[in-house]
């Protein structure tokens, strides 16, 4: 039954994709020549006006361009012309650096907040105020203090990753089952051993959920951040291709951003399943 449900869902997905692609192709294809126009004027106006062809590329064009881009993803022809994999690589690097820094800071800090009701209450107002701030609002401050656009982007990733991590770690650590703590206490387990053998493993699923939320937000934010700071990255690529009026490349970038985001989410989900435990 399950396999037949999977098969039917897959079939429906494929059908929906096909319908969408066909509708897209039909919508952007031309409707024949526009009647009686001065050829010179027509050449000036381009196909959009003369043949009714949309400037929006169709799926076939996208496919052709995607093959070209993926055939040589690592080329580097100067600052404004780099392979798509290089651009994605820069974005991933910034996300992983910012996210990694956030993990290093937020997990230990969240651990102490979770263990201490005093700390939790004292820090609550700060977290509540800082959490809803759009990470991009930090950008000018980051540029002013760090004075490096690439590092500022990493800082913005750090600041947007830290809140879900902090909140989930504190919650996970604070809600470890009393019976597990009691077992450890009757065994006179304290300090570092209590933290690493009991509290952290017990809180691991909640912490991993925080990481999954964080990396999702980080991947959302990096595109916008790179549009602002420029230079390299998939966000910069989108903006650059918009300035080049290359809608094809913009659409391809959108597609790749979605695929990489999904891969990051699946990866953390997989790690989470391995660190988690069933009860």
């Amino acid at each position, binding site marked *: 039954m399950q396999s037949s449900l999977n098969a039917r869902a897959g079939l429906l997905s494929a059908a929906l994709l096909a319908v969408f692609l066909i509708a897209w192709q039909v919508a952007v294809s031309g409707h024949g020549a526009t009647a009686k126009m001065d050829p010179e004027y027509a050449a000036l106006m381009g196909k959009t006006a003369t043949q009714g062809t949309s400037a929006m590329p169709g799926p076939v064009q996208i496919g052709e361009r995607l093959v070209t881009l993926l055939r040589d993803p690592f080329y580097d022809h100067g600052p404004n012309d780099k392979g798509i994999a290089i651009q994605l690589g820069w974005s991933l690097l910034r996300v992983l650096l910012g996210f990694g820094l956030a993990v290093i800071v937020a997990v230990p800090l969240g651990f102490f907040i979770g263990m201490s009701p005093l700390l939790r209450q004292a820090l609550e107002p700060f977290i509540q105020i800082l959490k809803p701030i759009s990470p991009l609002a930090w950008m000018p401050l980051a540029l002013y203090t760090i004075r490096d656009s690439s590092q500022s982007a990493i800082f913005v990733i750090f600041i947007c990753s830290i809140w879900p991590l902090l909140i989930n770690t504190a919650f996970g650590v604070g809600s470890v089952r009393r*019976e597990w703590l*009691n*077992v450890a*206490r*009757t065994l*006179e387990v304290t300090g570092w051993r209590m933290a690493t053998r009991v509290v952290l493993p017990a809180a*691991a699923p909640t912490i991993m959920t925080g990481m999954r939320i964080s990396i999702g937000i980080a991947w959302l934010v990096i595109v916008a951040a790179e549009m602002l700071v420029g230079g390299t990255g998939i966000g910069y690529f989108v903006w650059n291709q918009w300035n080049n009026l290359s809608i094809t490349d913009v659409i391809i970038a959108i597609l790749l951003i979605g695929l990489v985001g999904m891969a990051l989410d699946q990866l953390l989900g997989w790690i989470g399943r391995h660190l988690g435990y*069933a009860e």
Partner: protein
Amino acid sequence: MSPNPSHHDRPQISVQALCKRFPGADRPTFNDVWFDIYPGEFVCLIGHSGCGKTTMLNILAGLDRASAGAVIVDGKEVVGPSLDRAVIFQSHALLPWMTVLGNIAFAVRSKWPDWSREKVEEHCRRYIELVHLAGAEGKRPVQLSGGMKQRVGIARALAIQPQILLMDEPFSALDALTRGSLQDEVVAISAASRQTTFMITHDIDEAVLLADRIVLMTAGPDARVAEVVENTLPRDRTRQSLHRLPGYYAVRNHLLDFLVERPRALPSDPRHPPTLRIGDAPDASSPVRIRA
């Protein structure tokens, strides 16, 4: 009949004027509770729900603090948990991210941090065999049945070779058959080790089977020890033969009446609740009071 532990010894556990009042409650859950447990004795505590049985066990374990009074173990007041007092929890409380072996090894390493990996594992395997779980060492708690989980809990508690074993209704969450087979094993282990054991239960048959003495609590709030029943049935009793022993029904009926009637009458001297010996004579219908 094998001799009961001599009460001329110094008690190993001495509960003195113990009182627990929860914040916000106007009356204490239990108050002025006194009883002693002697070395090698198996003592069961029976009482209605709400008389603070689990709280009392937690205070004995050092996991909870009394509002007044003290628990003295081997001449020292209990101020916190200790590896000398192992607890078997009602909910088995295994750590779900560790295997069976891992759960027991965690306890063993806590007691003997200097032991080599091989020594710890060998020690753990001995206790896994003791509770008949050989072959399940690598399983995680989620893969075990309720009875097997509680066996791991028992093995974990015994593996640290404690002075005192504290059990909080360890079999109450199990079905009757599983409970029976685990009781048999506790009988066997207890007979072999003469481990000082304090167990909370609301199962009368369990208490009669396992306990040398049964402490009866009045209903809470303000619960106290109403009386202590000495189990005069032969030590080598088993679950299968228990109900054929002369005197069994006298003890059982006495306990049942106590629970059904929910007595609130307090003993005149909470420090020395009456001790009863029931069932010495095969047709004993009225309890014989030996100490008041």
